[in-house]
């Protein structure tokens, strides 16, 4: 199903031409922003110099540090009174990153969500429970506006308690949820404990899962546990929030809306483009924003372009699910490790529960705490010791380090209200 079939299936040459035109427009718009004007002056680039897609490489990168240095409104490209909404990113340290929306930006963001929602087969007959945090985080409001645009009944549930989420799902026969992957796993445990079988007792049929990188194994685990289809959603505050890229019913990579964003994959260290299909850092330029477009924003998210057309007919290219953030990479005993590698191993083991923590202590001592799934328990202490060794061995095969594995009780690891905190680094290096 399409929300805007013409643009979603636009002929590639026409899409490329539209991109180029919008990129030029954006550069023109950014000449008003002192930060960018200074950079343009240095290299002498002018909007008219952007003649082909490759010319984007003549434009400067923008980094998270640039956003923080220009906090609160140094990167605003319109007059203050044109702005009607502010979101900030969940900055874990120091100042947040602020992003402004004009009236048109709010509408465009909703439009992109509407495309995404329709793309998964959701219609105005669906009841959409948005379990993301409303407020400064974009996951709540931006998704809300888009689902409303489609005409769903939108329940602004927010993160709230699981008891209340369940009550809403039961009373209003929720069919679609928007949820963090870590919370989806926790919620599945919660239902199990309550003795509720979502396939029989609830009307859920689809879940939009995003805001945290997660693995294919996690998707399958959520699908099995909740009895629904899970669609991966990619977004970031700096680019509107959710809905930058989204999966279609094919569930094979996320279509990135190229009429709104120019997509580049670069080598994180050199800044040079990688070959199609190779993994690198995703760099995005917002070319359809008024209040605060950003040029070549370094997302730090690692992904690759999936080559070839998609069966759904959309011409907007797909990116692979995020395999990690270049920021998240851990270096343990000289080995580069992404938490997603560990997650992939754990989620493929049915005896292991859905929550985990990676703990680093002392001089590079790595402990992975995993919850024992109630189904994985047969009363034999010896089997548990074996299971522990098995997990450690599988992890060693994946990350080349044999961590200490600690089996803990189901539900004993902390569950975050917002994004899950999986890595605790207390090393004294």
């Amino acid at each position, binding site marked *: 199903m399409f929300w805007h079939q013409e643009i979603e299936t636009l002929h590639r040459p026409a899409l490329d031409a539209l991109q180029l035109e919008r990129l030029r427009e954006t550069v023109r718009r950014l000449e008003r922003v002192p930060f960018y004007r200074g950079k343009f002056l240095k290299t002498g680039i002018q909007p008219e110099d952007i003649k082909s897609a490759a010319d984007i490489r003549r434009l400067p990168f923008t980094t998270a540090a640039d956003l923080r240095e220009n906090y609160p409104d140094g990167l605003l490209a319109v007059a203050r009174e044109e702005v009607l909404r502010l979101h900030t990113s969940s900055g874990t340290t120091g100042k947040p990153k602020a992003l402004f929306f004009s009236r048109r930006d709010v509408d465009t963001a909703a439009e992109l969500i509407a495309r995404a929602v329709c793309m998964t087969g959701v219609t105005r007959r669906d009841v959409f429970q948005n379990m993301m945090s409303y407020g400064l985080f974009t996951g709540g409001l931006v998704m809300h506006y888009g689902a409303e645009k489609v005409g769903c009944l939108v329940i602004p549930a927010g993160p709230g308690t699981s008891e209340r989420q369940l009550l809403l799902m039961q009373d209003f026969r929720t069919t679609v949820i928007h949820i963090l992957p870590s919370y989806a796993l926790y919620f599945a445990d919660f239902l199990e404990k309550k003795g509720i079988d979502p396939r029989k007792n609830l009307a859920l049929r689809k879940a939009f899962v995003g805001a945290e990188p997660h693995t294919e194994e996690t998707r399958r685990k959520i699908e099995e546990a909740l009895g629904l289809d899970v669609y991966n959603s990619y977004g970031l505050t700096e680019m509107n929030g959710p809905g930058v890229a989204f999966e279609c019913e094919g569930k094979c990579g996320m279509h990135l809306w190229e009429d709104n964003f120019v997509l580049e994959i670069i080598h994180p260290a050199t800044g040079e483009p990688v070959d199609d299909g190779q993994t690198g850092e995703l760099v995005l330029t917002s070319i359809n924003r008024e209040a605060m477009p950003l040029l070549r924003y370094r997302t730090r998210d690692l992904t690759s372009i999936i080559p070839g057309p998609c069966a759904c007919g959309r011409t907007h290219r797909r990116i692979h699910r995020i395999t990690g953030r270049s920021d998240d990479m851990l270096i343990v005993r000289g080995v580069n490790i992404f938490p997603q590698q560990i997650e992939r191993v754990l989620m493929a083991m049915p005896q292991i529960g859905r929550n985990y923590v990676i703990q680093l202590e002392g001089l590079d001592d790595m402990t992975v705490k995993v919850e*024992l799934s109630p189904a994985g328990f*047969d009363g034999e*202490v010896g089997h548990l010791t074996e299971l522990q060794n098995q997990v450690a061995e599988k992890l060693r095969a994946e990350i080349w380090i044999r961590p200490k594995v600690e089996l803990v009780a189901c*539900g004993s690891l902390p569950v975050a209200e917002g994004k899950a905190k999986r890595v605790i680094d207390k090393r004294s290096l």
Partner: protein
Amino acid sequence: MNTVKLVAVFAENRPGQAARVTEILARANINIRCITVASSGTFGVMKLLVNDPDLACQSLKQAGFAATLTEVIAVEMPDKPGALHTVAACLAAHDINLCNTSGFVANHRAILVIEVEDTAQAGEILKKQGLHVLTQQEALAV
């Protein structure tokens, strides 16, 4: 063959875990007749002989514990020197390995609770030896 059901529960090896388990059982009005703990590093398994194993297991599961029921043999022995040796030697003669084993003496009756791989086989052997293998009800009535 007579067997006895024990409730097995996974618990982390840290203070307060037994208190949590027993609190849940107390609330469900479960009477505990015998308890053993096998620990291995950071975790352990508690096994309990209780008056209502199904209810106990269900209550623990509802509280979020990994719990299950295991079948064991409870055999009565004379409460005198050499009695345990008779049982152990008899099982040894048949090459049967004892896993978790515990015992208790109450009301002048000595009960040995043993876990073996093949419960039926071990039960038959003990019976042939002239020992009484208890039913669940008998074990609870000791």
